[in-house]
């Protein structure tokens, strides 16, 4: 892991650029999920850096393109991933030009491997990504590969029962090559997670399920990277990183505002204002 100031600065810069581009994609589509795309971005940038995609050859799968697997279980945040792929110079421009959520475009509303196999798995029906990641991690373990599997879950997503089946499975099979990251922005579609179906005490639940639990500021790349290092040193059990984030991070009127979770049409004024704040690096 490179920890030079220049590299850390580069990650922050990637996140800033990708936030702007994700909003551009969502504005262009006049639909999409801006709140979660903005909260997850710093996590995504750090995991992307770890997975180390060398190229994103449209027809190839992650195992041919990346050192490690990266699964986005909260599929509605995929504009963040498209944007990051593009600002990293890995997404072919003709793909980006086809637009988000448009007929025939590879930038589908939720990840779809029929269009972009490098996404690892199709997702969007919440609760499924961790199971898929367990399969990848178990496969790597059985094949005695040093490959790791990263999976990003939303916090509202944790209300799906399947997720807890997977938490049992990963601990039982001692998948220490698996790292789950929870984008803990405290909000889901309608309201606070604690109003809809409370998750707390979340950390205790993961501990009880036999996982190595870490908690970080999900917008601090130094902290995120440190937690990943700790996760990699763990033996005999999987790690989960509870990343405390702000939904809508970087745009004042979107921050902590559930209305910006879902498919909201953004006005031009809102879009310009948002881009301006992101460009200034509001933190």
């Amino acid at each position, binding site marked *: 892991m490179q920890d030079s100031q220049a590299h850390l600065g580069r990650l922050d810069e990637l996140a800033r650029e990708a936030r702007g581009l994700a909003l551009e994609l969502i504005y262009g589509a006049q639909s999409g999920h801006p709140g979660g795309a903005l909260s997850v971005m710093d996590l995504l940038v750090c995991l992307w850096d770890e997975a180390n995609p060398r190229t994103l050859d449209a027809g190839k*799968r992650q195992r041919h393109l990346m050192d490690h697997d990266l699964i986005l279980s909260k599929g509605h945040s995929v504009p963040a991933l498209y944007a990051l792929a593009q600002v990293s110079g890995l997404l072919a421009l003709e793909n980006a030009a086809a637009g988000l959520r448009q007929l025939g475009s590879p930038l589908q509303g939720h990840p779809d*491997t029929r269009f972009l196999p490098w996404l690892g798995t199709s997702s969007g029906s919440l609760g*499924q990504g961790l199971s*898929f990641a367990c399969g990848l991690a178990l496969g790597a373990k059985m094949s005695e590969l040093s490959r790791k599997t990263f999976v990003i879950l939303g916090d509202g997503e944790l209300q799906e029962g399947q997720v807890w089946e*997977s938490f049992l499975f990963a601990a039982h*099979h001692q998948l220490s090559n698996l790292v789950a990251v929870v984008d803990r922005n405290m909000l889901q579609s309608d309201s606070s997670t604690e109003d809809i179906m409370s998750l707390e005490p979340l950390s205790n639940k993961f501990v009880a399920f036999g996982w190595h639990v870490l908690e970080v500021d999900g917008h601090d790349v130094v902290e995120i990277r440190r937690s990943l290092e700790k996760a990699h040193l763990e033996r005999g059990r999987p790690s989960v990183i509870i990343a405390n984030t702000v939904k809508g991070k970087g745009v004042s009127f979107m921050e902590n505002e559930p209305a910006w979770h879902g498919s909201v049409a953004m006005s031009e004024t809102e879009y310009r204002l948002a881009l301006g704040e992101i460009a200034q690096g509001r933190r």
Partner: protein
Amino acid sequence: MVSIRQPTLVAGSSNTLRDAFGDALVSLAASNPSVLALDGDVAGGTGAYKFRNEFPDRFVQCGIAEQNMVGVAAGLAEAGYLPFVCTFASFMLRGLDQVKLAVAQNGLPVTLVASHPGLDTGPDGASAQCLDDLAIFRAVPGLQVFSPGSPFEVAEIIAARGNASGPAYIRTGRSSHEFREDPGVPFRLGQPRLLREGTDVTIAATGVQVTRCLEAADLLAREGLSAAVFSVHQIKPLDASRIVRSANQTGLLVTSEDHSVVGGLGGAVAQACAGTATDFKIEINGVADSFGQSGDSDELASYYGIGPSEIAARILELTGAEFQRH
């Protein structure tokens, strides 16, 4: 008069389709190191215990958690393995959303093998008697659906899955039957096999109904009625051409399945016939739109109208008027 081929009882180690599956999987795994079996604590029931005994390191215990099991299988397939997900048909449906998204939409070579389909499940009663799996899984894009009618067909289908490039659902069976086979009828994946030639009625059967329909054909022969019997081991995609050709000659096509009359083999055949020139009636034999109950497999088959005598009686009823003219 067309010569009547008589399928014979085939002596073998397995007289249930689930045991045949266990044997076939062991055989495939011996030559293909990518093969894995995933179990949801029902290995003793599905036949997967045979694989566990031979290849404990390639047997993945998933506990009673089918949604996760299907998702894990998809991930293992993405990692380059050939996973077989083994559970009861009713419980496979717990993972339907995962079959759709993680398996089928990703186009991964996961094989879903479901034992305990239909009334064949017997005494466990309605909750375990899956009568809707063929209809439901037929509707999943890109998912091939198989329903073998004998241990021989199970073995052929499992062997073919060694080269799978996409997903499949395979229905086996729980109860013992005196399966009849004709080793002289070649197996070509996807092509219905004509196990008995006949001129008066065409029967297209699947799963354990193949054996029952061969028995029904014996009963009909005593009444002077000659029944052709096809074993349809693949429901989707369905190759109905030979069945339609036969039915155009006999004038009556009866489909038979240990499954709801809604959306299974009968539905698939009727759909295949829609829009093509046909000169025959179609009778869909299966379980009326209802849940089952406890009982012995054959006893239930008789009660719900899919036993050999019931099928023969229904065919005599349908052809009766015509036969009196002969």
